[in-house]
């Protein structure tokens, strides 16, 4: 015969295990974009309305539909982000001629420090603020910096989980510059 406490204990243990499993899944990183790109496919870039860092109001990746975009997740407290900023700024100037832009996503960063950082680095491209990391989580971002090349149709065609290099840009930028919307 089963003891009287069998079902309450079983249900309580299942609830606890379910909660732990949910926590692991919710905090885990999404690698589906990496897999799709590795398979040679493109992925629709997630969009979300986020507050502008260097300006009032809000913005979204959706506003750049029809333009090639280099989306870069950064933070002022991230040392490698400092190193790649000059290259990103040069790239922004370069692709602006083709109607493109670098779009920064400043993640979990103090606004004052972030603006000071941009001024110090002479950055002119726009940035949005992802204060709770929810947006970059949808891109599978686990560290900083990370970059995504998004074509005119709003699809991710390449990604780089780490600081960008000139070689990576040379190899991948043509993919977004040549596509038509």
């Amino acid at each position, binding site marked *: 015969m089963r003891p009287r406490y069998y079902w309450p*204990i079983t249900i309580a243990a299942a609830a606890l295990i379910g909660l732990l499993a949910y926590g692991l899944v919710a905090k885990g990183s999404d690698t589906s974009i990496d897999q799709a790109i590795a398979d040679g496919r493109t992925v629709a870039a997630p969009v979300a309305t986020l507050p502008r860092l260097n300006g009032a109001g809000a913005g979204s990746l959706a506003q750049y539909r029809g333009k090639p975009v280099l989306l870069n997740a950064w933070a*002022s407290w991230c*040392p490698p982000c400092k190193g790649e900023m000059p290259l990103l700024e040069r790239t922004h100037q370069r692709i602006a001629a083709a109607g493109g832009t670098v779009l920064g996503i400043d993640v*979990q*960063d*103090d606004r004052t420090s972030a603006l000071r950082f941009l001024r110090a680095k002479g950055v002119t491209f726009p940035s949005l603020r992802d204060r709770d990391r929810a947006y970059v989580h949808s891109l599978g971002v686990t560290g900083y910096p990370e970059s995504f090349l998004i074509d005119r149709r709003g699809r991710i065609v390449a990604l780089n989980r780490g600081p960008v290099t000139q070689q990576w840009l040379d190899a991948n930028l043509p993919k977004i510059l040549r596509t038509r919307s």
Partner: protein
Amino acid sequence: MTGRLAAVVAALSLLLVPGAALAATPRTSLPDIEDEVMCVECGTPLEVSQSPVANQERALIRREIAQGKTKQQIKDSLVAEYGAAVLADPQGGGVNTAVWLVPAILVPLAALGAAFAARRWRRQGAAEAPAPEREPEALDPAEARRLDAELSAFDS
């Protein structure tokens, strides 16, 4: 005379008002806030975190302490900059509520279960305990005499 008295009262009141204001809003300190907020990237309490983002959070806290802000105002600023995950206490509904509720329900239930189990084991232990050893019964005189006779055979 009355004018001089009024001036003294006015001067005293000027001295007392800032003191009263300070008493109403006690200043906070970095350690007082550090143990209630998280390093947003490391997922550890700020007081034990040494990452660059933890240092940035500390700088923000120090800045706001210097501006005379209260603990709650500083925590609100941290949430505005880093999101609700910066607070050590889970906020809001959904899984955050479950994080509070499940342990709050399970821990008393587990304690109750342990108490019941301990009581049951104690009762079972008492029921299964071996009977206490009895004093050996005294031999009747005839048997005692026979035993003495048999034992005396070994004495010789």
